[in-house]
């Protein structure tokens, strides 16, 4: 007895996954992010020097000299170790802040798009006002008034990203709210919360994922910018933004490695995240 096997049609999400896994930009981006994630979680696997260990007489040792692959900074600290350990803070704060922003933004966007009318009008005006404020300035103000600890930075970045995400989600909800499956759910007596979070939310997951990856890149930049101007990190911390600030005057003496290496690390992380965002956007748009 023989049986004929029929090709099974892929679900949209399976098709999306399949396309992403075939995308070189997606894989390359993930490779970059995975590398920095490993650096953040287990830096000791990659380097064995303490990033805080000072050796003042080895100030500004050139790369590939005296066993320092990427040289030393002005305090004789190993630049490679500092670049690897420097991923820790940013790889924790940026995703945490982005997740917070997405959670709050999705809730607001669902409410604005689905409930409409007065709720939409009021929230839209508030969000427009918030969006008009430059992120870094508001963050500066907030961190000056509040204690500039990790939790505050996550809260501030998340709060400032939430309105941007809410607008995107609102637009996606508006496109969905008059479709048949939403009407069916309403006619079958489901309450608004159920319709928003169980019916609509899974169908706007694509734009949310795109928004998450885009905002993650911005969060990395915002965090680096804040630490560059001295917020959220202690002096001597290997954080990339802080290190670029601390070592920037070395450039005037043609000593490039203490500041350029963390800048390259920062750029590589942001480019990796953006590659992922571009790949997802391309698949979602198809």
């Amino acid at each position, binding site marked *: 007895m023989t049986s004929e096997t029929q090709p099974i049609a892929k679900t949209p999400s399976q098709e999306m996954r399949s396309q992403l896994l075939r995308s070189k930009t997606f894989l390359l981006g993930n490779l970059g992010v995975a590398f920095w994630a490993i650096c953040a979680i287990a830096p000791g696997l990659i380097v064995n020097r303490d990033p*805080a*260990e*000072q050796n*003042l*007489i080895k*100030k500004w040792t050139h790369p590939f000299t005296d066993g320092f692959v990427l040289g030393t900074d*002005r*305090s*004789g600290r190993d630049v490679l170790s500092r670049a690897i350990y420097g991923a820790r803070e940013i790889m924790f704060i940026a995703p945490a802040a982005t997740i917070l922003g997405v959670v709050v933004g999705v809730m607001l966007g669902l409410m604005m798009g689905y409930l409409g009318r007065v709720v939409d009008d009021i929230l839209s005006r508030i969000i427009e006002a918030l969006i008009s404020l430059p992120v870094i300035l508001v963050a500066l103000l907030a961190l000056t008034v509040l204690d500039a600890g990790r939790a505050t930075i996550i809260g501030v970045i998340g709060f400032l990203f939430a309105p941007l995400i809410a607008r995107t989600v609102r637009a996606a909800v508006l496109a969905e709210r008059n479709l048949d499956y939403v009407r069916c759910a309403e006619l079958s007596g489901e309450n608004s919360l159920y319709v928003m979070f169980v019916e609509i939310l899974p169908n706007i997951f694509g734009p949310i994922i795109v928004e998450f990856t885009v905002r993650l890149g911005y969060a990395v930049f915002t965090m680096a910018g804040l630490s560059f101007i*001295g917020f959220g990190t*202690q*002096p*001597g911390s290997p954080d990339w933004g802080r290190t670029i600030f*601390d070592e*920037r*005057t*070395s*450039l*005037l*003496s043609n*000593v490039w490695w203490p500041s350029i290496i963390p800048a390259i690390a920062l750029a590589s992380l942001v480019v990796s995240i953006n590659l992922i965002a571009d790949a997802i956007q391309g698949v979602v748009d198809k």
Partner: protein
Amino acid sequence: MGKINFRRIDAIRQTQGQIGNHVIDEFVSGRLSRRDFIRRGTIVGLSFPAIGALIAACGGSETSTTAETTGAAPVAGGTLIIASGTPSAASANLDPVAINDGNGIVFLAQYGQWLTLSQNDLTLAGSLATEWVPNDDASEWTFKLNPAAKYSDGSPVVAADVVATIERLVNPDNASNSLSAFQTGKLSPGGTIAVDDNTVMFKLDAPMGNFPYIVSSDNYNAIILPASVTDTTKFATSNIPTSGPFMIESYDAVKGATMVRNPNYWGTAPLLDKVEVQFIDDLGAKVTAFQSGDIDVIAQFPVIGGESLINNPDVNLIEIPSTAHYQIHMRTSKGAFADKRARQAMSMAIDHQSMVDGLLQGKAQVANDTPFFTMFPSSGSGPAREFNLEKAKALMAEAAPDGFDVTLYSWQTQEIPDLAVLVQNAGKELGINVKIELRDDYYDSYWVSWDANTPGSDLGITDYGHRGVPDVFLNAPLLSVDKGGVWNAAEFANADYDAAVATYTSSVDLQSQQAAALKIQEILQDESPLMIPYNFNFMSAAQKNISGVTNSGMGQVYAENASKS
């Protein structure tokens, strides 16, 4: 020392008081080196011609303590552009009573003048005063004013002006920045007396051997202003007459200021038409502006970040050994460092020499956790602070075997962030977890605990400017609060120390000062309220086409003899 001409010495002796003759005795007997004699002589009012004559009478050659500046041939006219940081809030209106930072001091040197001038070799020179003499126990000092001195409006500088200026500065109601300096100088309200138009007497509360420094450029707030001036709070825009070579033409609290030549200047007329001060806070921006030729002088820069200036042959580097330093206080009265052994351990865990060699590239001198720097003759040969990590760990094992957490407070300037990290790493060796907080409000809240709203700090770094004598460093930051320790961040209270400082302050000869200094150094190293790892050189930079600019360790930039070719 060659053959001594006693007849010539006796002739000079007759013009001196008891203290002046004591200094001469010490030099003639060989107890004072020539350098120390010049310095002590200027303090007690011996004139440079008299000092030169005495050195010659003792077999040396007459000498001058001033150094000739070299550079391009002087050219009249032009504007000198100085880059400096934005003055602090207290200094923002250039009120001479309130100025409290180096950025404000840059201005005072252009239009202000003091009774005496503290020079870079730690000698004193006359400025508005031509001579000064103490009474027999140095509790009264009489200053003669230069009769030629006058203000920018043409009126003469008289004793009444000195009285009005100093009384304003010693008045506790005026929030004077120099109150602590005058407390150190034992001068109280009512103690400044005009003897005649050209003679001022200071009646002190107690003898004070180094008093002429208290009215010198070291006490930068003490520029002399006309007696008619009653309000200095809007100084920058008030057109108040001043006696210096330049006067304010325009001032912008954000951008900077322009000063023009004083047409009635009583000294040698400046060559420059104008001096412009531009506020640039970022060191990188300052260096870039200098390299592009937009500015002529950088008033001060730190070694860290200033390497491109230090190593550049096209830069006229001005480097002055100074007594400027950072004090790292450890609170003695309560908190993490209340146990003396923890303070001693922390002090022993810091390698001063490697800080000087590495962090400061040799542009500093090792200090021993006391304000008696090697530059001060009165320091004598005090004990060196030992760097001994094993001993430090043993002390910590007794004081706090489980270690402790502590927050180090300070503010972001010069080398402070790097110094803070070094302290943090030293703490790590001892099991002390040091968290660093650099805050703009350090001086308002975390430096000294003035009251319940200002917590002070268990550990903090405070920057101190140059002084020609250690008196201010010994008094305000270390004396018991009820004895005048108004900047006592360590909350140090030690009766033996207070008594030793009183002895030091009232001593007028070097041997007595050195004896008291030794006692003070022993107490401070044992009690360890402060870590003072080094005193650093004052670094400034000028373009190669600039000549005649001179600086002081305190931060004054003198453009009186400057020219631009």
